[in-house]
């Protein structure tokens, strides 16, 4: 009987303890890794130009508190970022989002480098070809030069014979 009597409050205490311990898990604690990812992706909005994770001023502190608050309420990284974009616009993001005109920010460097690479390839190809043609020219000239020399050598030989 006593045991039965004790079981009910024990279950209530255990249940309450479980609920209390579970609350920070979904409402109080914040995944530091996600928080850092968000802070690394946002810029402090007081015109200091610094990444949020690097900035220590009051605006940065305020923004950080909002991140912690929203994460602790169970919002995802995208939702928190979306909240800041809705308030400040895209300029709060540390890198331009790859959509619309801003795609040019991401692709232009690689297009330029690729174009530079192709240019080097075609120029090199041409220069290697020039070198090959030059080599062929030299090789075709060599026997002729040799023939010319032998002609002179023969003539010299003939003339020398006259004096012998």
């Amino acid at each position, binding site marked *: 009987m006593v045991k039965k009597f004790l079981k009910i409050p024990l279950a209530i205490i255990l249940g309450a303890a479980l609920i209390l311990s579970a609350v920070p898990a979904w409402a109080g604690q914040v995944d530091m890794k996600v928080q850092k990812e968000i802070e690394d992706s946002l810029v402090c909005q007081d015109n200091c*130009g610094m990444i949020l994770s690097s900035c220590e001023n009051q605006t940065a502190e305020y923004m950080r508190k909002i991140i912690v608050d929203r994460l602790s309420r169970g919002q995802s990284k995208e939702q928190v970022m979306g909240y800041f974009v809705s308030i400040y616009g895209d300029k709060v993001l540390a890198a331009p989002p790859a959509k619309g*005109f801003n795609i040019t*920010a991401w692709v232009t460097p*690689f297009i330029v*480098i690729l174009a530079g690479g192709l240019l*080097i390839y075609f120029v*090199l190809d041409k220069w290697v070809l020039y070198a090959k043609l030059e080599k062929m020219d030299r090789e075709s000239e060599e026997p002729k030069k040799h023939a010319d020399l032998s002609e002179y050598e023969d003539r010299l030989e003939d003339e020398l014979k006259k004096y012998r």
Partner: protein
Amino acid sequence: MADIGYISLVIGFVLSLYAIVGQLAGQKLGNRNLIKSAKGAVLAVAILATVASLALIYLLVTGDFSVKYVYDYTSTDLPLFYKFAAFWAGNGGSLLLWLWVLAIYTAIVTYSDKIDELTPCVSSILMGNALFFLFILAFVTNPFEKLGYMPAEGQGMNPMLQNFGMVIHPVTTYLGYVGFAVPFAFAMAALMTKNTDDRWIKITRKWTILAWMFLTLGNLYGAQWAYVELGWGGYWAWDPVENASFIPWLTGSAFLHSVMIQERKNMLKTWNVSLITITYLLTLFGTFLVRSGILTSVHAFGNSNLGMFFLVFTGLVFVASFWLIADRLPMLKGSREFESFVSKESSFLLNNLILVGIAFTTFFGTIYPLIGELFTGSRPTVSIPYFDKVNAPLGLLMILLMGICPLIAWRKSSGKNLRDNFLVPLAGAVIFAVIAYVLGLRKIYALAAFTAVAFVVVSTLSEVAKGTLVRMRMTGENPVAALGRLLVRNRRRYGGYIIHLGLIMLLAGIIGSHTYNRVEQKTLRLGETIRVEDYSLTYRNLAEGKDGKNDTVYADVAAAKNGQPLGLLQPKKVYYPTHPQPATEVAIRGSLSQDLYLILAGWENDGRATLKVLINPLVAWLWIGGYVMVAGTVFALWPGRGADVGPKYTRGV
């Protein structure tokens, strides 16, 4: 004294005009007396710039607050060292420093008479630059402007500038920036006088390398200052002003490599002239960025109308120099023969592509907020994530090329040659990757980057070892003597290898600190401990103190690593009476493997303190690598036998 300084600037302005006209007219008319007289004017400008600079230093050191510049940047309690450094703390002073360096460089070039027919032209171009700076100083931002009354106290120097790194950083950066003006002037003079052979490159080689070395130091000290003084735990934020000195460093590095092809094979003449022109234009563009306030930066001098003057000047130099290059294009045709795709020449071209590619990417990202605003109406932010993502793969390619280049022969590499040369470095890199993976290096990007680093180290050292062995075999010298003589007698080549190894150390620091850094922030009660990796930090005390006239709030934190005490750390906030925002003074315990970096982020009235703890791996290698690069540069530049370029390769040789 202020009047002496200002009059020096005005007379300097007039004399620089005379120096330009006199030298150009003298050369045109063949009037040597006129040239000699104009050369005297160049010397006079150097002396007048020195007088003006010393006058400003005197005013700063003696605290004459009736001069606006002294009032704006100093205060009576400022240590003498920083009063002196205030010379370049503001717009006017820093431009005067630029002028001073430029005027001295111009005098040296003018009187060294390396190529008689080029010198008047070179000197005139440099004087043209000096004329611009003298105009700005005399008529736009006069550092000797008077307030008309004598304030009892000055406004003081920005606390963030009161750091040794910030004292050295501007000087070295300017020595680099101005240094690139010399090869640029020689290149333009060569085009103007139609002397388009490679003499200008040979003459300016030392100037170029010195400028590059100072710019390296400038970037290095800038990074050190940011790491220690800005208190955010990093050293490079891809800030527009940081980028402004990094971009010409990249194009300057590309130029140092591509001129070797012109020296050896008489090729790439147009490219080399264009590259040094772009490098010099980028130094001007960097100055425009710093002075205009057009982009947000923690380093900028603030908004001023100076930006417009620099923009116009940069535009004029751009148009004039590229018009000249276009006009002389037929004279810039060199040899057009590459024997093979697989040659050192080709690898240098790839190296140029990557270096200029990174420069372009950084430039494009820096100005993209303006482009974005132009096309979309709102200004996007382009910061660390963008530059890291876009430049990282290019950086990895760059590292690989640093390992590949020394292994490939000039002119042509045969299959056997490639097999023989690549076997050891590739094997070394693979062994390193396996060991690193087994030891726990599991992040794929870090593993790839460190493996590339290992490849470069083995490739460079194997080249040195090969050279030493050949020398031992041929001369019978012992290994130490053979190595020593090999290095000393080929200083240019092995100086370059030392620079590569230094750069690799620096890159290892960047890779390590980017991929394995750790941050923790926690609010602690007195006596509470925070543990981060092997470190434990116990918050002992929060107190107020005095640092001269400044109030400080500091925390005493007992640090230990694996239970071994590291001592007491004191991160603090410093409150300067002359500045509204407190400065963060971080506490750093550094070692070769990692830095423990502690920031006092905040505190509560009940005595709780918020500490931000960063573990930054391998940061020390950044600074060590930078100094090794400088040592390699000095080694390569040291005069005497061994400092010359290798043989010129011509057909049939």
